[in-house]
């Protein structure tokens, strides 16, 4: 039996009738065609589907849409104009933060949240904090370098 749910996605009110077993990642991709959110393992291990729920990072593949009544969801599409995200994307581009790009949306969301919470961060901390996002190209060196570069860029421009 479908359940009616009302939530906000990328600042847009969404009302939908969903099967209780529909997880948020499927809802975003299949119902709303917001395909920036990628699905890797689909059981909460790889981090590719990481989105922001009420401002905090969460795995979309293990969040049930019906349980998100009233929630505020942001995907990579919704952060297109965000400054921190723009800096991160530029850094990933310049410092080889991606190869095939499959894990990148989850990496970007996790890194966005990380730099918000810990703007002044070391490479070692980045490695620890990003351990919930898996890159199957194993491009971790480039990813860590990109995030560190973004952190430095944001830090040096504070107050500018």
């Amino acid at each position, binding site marked *: 039996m479908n359940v009616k749910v009302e939530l906000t996605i990328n600042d847009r009110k969404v009302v939908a009738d969903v099967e*209780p077993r529909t997880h948020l990642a499927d809802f975003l991709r299949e119902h709303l065609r917001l395909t920036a959110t990628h699905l890797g393992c*689909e059981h909460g291990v790889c*981090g590719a589907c990481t989105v922001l729920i009420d401002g905090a990072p969460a795995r979309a593949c293990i969040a049930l849409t019906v349980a998100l009544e009233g929630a505020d969801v942001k995907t990579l599409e919704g952060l297109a104009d965000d400054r921190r995200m723009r800096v991160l994307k530029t850094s990933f581009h310049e410092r080889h933060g991606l190869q095939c790009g499959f894990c990148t949306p989850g990496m970007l969301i996790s890194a966005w949240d990380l730099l918000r919470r810990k703007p002044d961060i070391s490479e070692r901390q980045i490695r620890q904090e990003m351990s*919930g996002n898996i890159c199957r190209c194993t491009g971790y060196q480039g990813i860590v370098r990109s995030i560190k570069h973004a952190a430095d860029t944001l830090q040096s421009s504070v107050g500018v």
Partner: protein
Amino acid sequence: MKPAPFTYRAASSSPEAIDALAKEAPPRILAGGQSLVPMLNLRLAPADALLDITRIAELRAVEETINSVRYGALTTHASFEDGLVPDASNGLMSHAAGNIAYRAVRTRGTIGGAIALADPAADWVTVCIALEAVLHLQSTSGKRQMQVEEFVLGPYFTAIAEGELISTIEVPKRSASERWGYHKVVVKTGEYAESMAVALLDRARGFARIVLGATDGAPIVMKKSAGALLAAADEAALKTAIACDLEAGEHEFGAAKRMLHTTAVLRAAKDAMAS
């Protein structure tokens, strides 16, 4: 779409939730969903019906009393990590919470859900047993309290009764002179532990407690090891005490596991002594 179909209902109050749990075929409780939903996705956990308790405000409430802090079962790991809730543990709970899985899991996973699941390799059962925490449970037949130590019986096996709901985890305020050590052995940051140990030491009141987790069973309260820690025994004596504690229970550890567990306890004990 991976889970098999199930029905869904969200309860808005504890009485409504325990009424729903009193049915003949009770629904499964959905809290943070960070273990349950992966298991539904993998179709390892059969569920015909889910009862969402995340909208029950009272289960989120945190109350500080003179002697304890009562954490609502829905308090997230991230709330502990970020210091958004009062601390009863001289920082141990915040430290442990910050090392559970990954940030995107900690923002949604709850302390009540973790204890209800009683995954032996997860952090809260071991930490809460070390801190002598008490669970408050409720059902249509009333309320009761139970030490977490008595609640956890084995891997994924607890003393929860049919239709019962964990409402609060009450942690007695630890003395200011108590020191803690926490050591977790993981292959990769954020993964389930191979071993973990918590050591508490308060020389001023002559108290020591050591709990070993990730044992493939219920956490082990290491009494002899705690005695050795309190007596400021040297490493050799501490190792002998750890070996005694490891042999005393029903567990049979292989050589490698014994070594990991011994190392975890030693390091936790050293941290408690050094801090």
